[in-house]
């Protein structure tokens, strides 16, 4: 197996390369744009033979739209014609809480009071998806997750929620970002289950924020 995987859904670009001889994990977070960061990450993998990959793994979001597309297009260039596996970017973050005895709610800021979110439950070292990724306001997310307890909130939107675990701010911010090693674990899970695809489907999530706002204001207007 010669696997290269990449996730560009957050400000921290993470990538890994694994074959029989070596494993390389790289994570990069700078002020540069995603296009530049992906290039820098690839430069840190100079010993990788990108001409001979057999599987390309790619984070499909949700997350920053431009960053996601940079990653997915690049993955296409690397792997078109070969096998792809798709990694859920929120699940990737959730993996930071792999041994939590409860529910992990990943919440990532989209815009204007809306967040991307999904809910997972760790079971024997794997994460079960309880609620698939969706986009909503803080209140409605809390509503949706009310029945699940206890909860650990991860993601850059966690500040708006109350976890049942008390983490300090710095630690929470670090645990709210993906790691390359976890990307590898999720890629392997996909490979193990033979969930290969030829076309990558980005998870933008249905409505744009402006549209949601618009609908919200219409409702308010008619009240």
């Amino acid at each position, binding site marked *: 197996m010669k696997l290269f995987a990449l996730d560009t859904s957050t400000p921290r670009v993470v990538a890994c390369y694994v074959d029989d001889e070596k494993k390389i994990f790289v994570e990069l977070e700078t002020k540069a744009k995603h296009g530049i960061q992906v290039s820098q990450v690839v430069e840190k993998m100079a010993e990788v033979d990108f001409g001979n990959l057999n599987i390309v793994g790619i984070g499909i979001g949700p997350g920053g739209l431009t960053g996601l597309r940079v990653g997915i297009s690049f993955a296409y260039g690397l792997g078109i014609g070969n096998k792809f596996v798709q990694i859920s970017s929120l699940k990737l973050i959730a993996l930071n809480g792999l041994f939590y005895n409860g529910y992990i709610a990943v919440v990532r800021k989209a*815009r204007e009071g809306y967040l991307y979110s999904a809910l997972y439950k760790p079971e024997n070292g794997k994460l079960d998806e309880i609620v698939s990724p969706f986009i909503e306001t803080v209140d409605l997310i809390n509503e949706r997750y009310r029945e699940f307890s206890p909860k650990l909130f991860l993601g850059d939107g966690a500040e708006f929620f109350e976890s049942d675990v008390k983490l300090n701010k710095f630690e929470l911010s670090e645990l709210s970002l993906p790691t390359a090693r976890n990307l590898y674990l999720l890629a392997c899970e996909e490979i193990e289950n033979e969930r290969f695809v030829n076309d990558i489907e980005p998870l933008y999530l249905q409505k*744009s*924020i*402006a*549209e949601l706002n*618009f609908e919200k*204001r*219409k409702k308010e*207007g008619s009240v």
Partner: protein
Amino acid sequence: METGCESCFELGILTEKELKSFARTFSQCLAEGDVIILSGEIGSGKTTFVRGLVTGLGCSEEIVTSPTFTLMNVYACSKTVYHLDAYRLNGIEDVFYVLEGEIEDRNGVFVIEWGNLIDSYFIEDVITVFFEHEDEKHRKVRLRVPSKRVSRFRRCLNFGEYKEQ
């Protein structure tokens, strides 16, 4: 153009020069975040109006070009001017994405040609300038502002060479 508009200012029939001059004065009455809809037929003077507007914010009128194809031009004047054009948009859905993808900066003024095409988007208070063809060299211009800003605009616009209702 509707009549009996309470918070409207009729500027009357203006030459190109007068129209630009009004736009210049008008620009100085604006606040950060203001949305200005420019409503009128092809060639009725919307883009010309923006030329005048930017001169009131310290820019030169040459920087203004038609945003019909670019969708949005941004002029870095004393306030940032986001000059949009809804002419080619397919409706509200596209508007969502234009604003979302482009407008990071909540400060600045937003001027939207053909904004009436997408007025259902604007629930909050907008300022609208209506343009009507009079003849080749003249346009009829009306300004409508949110009711609570009427007195402030009245004061602000009192000075200058243009007509008022």
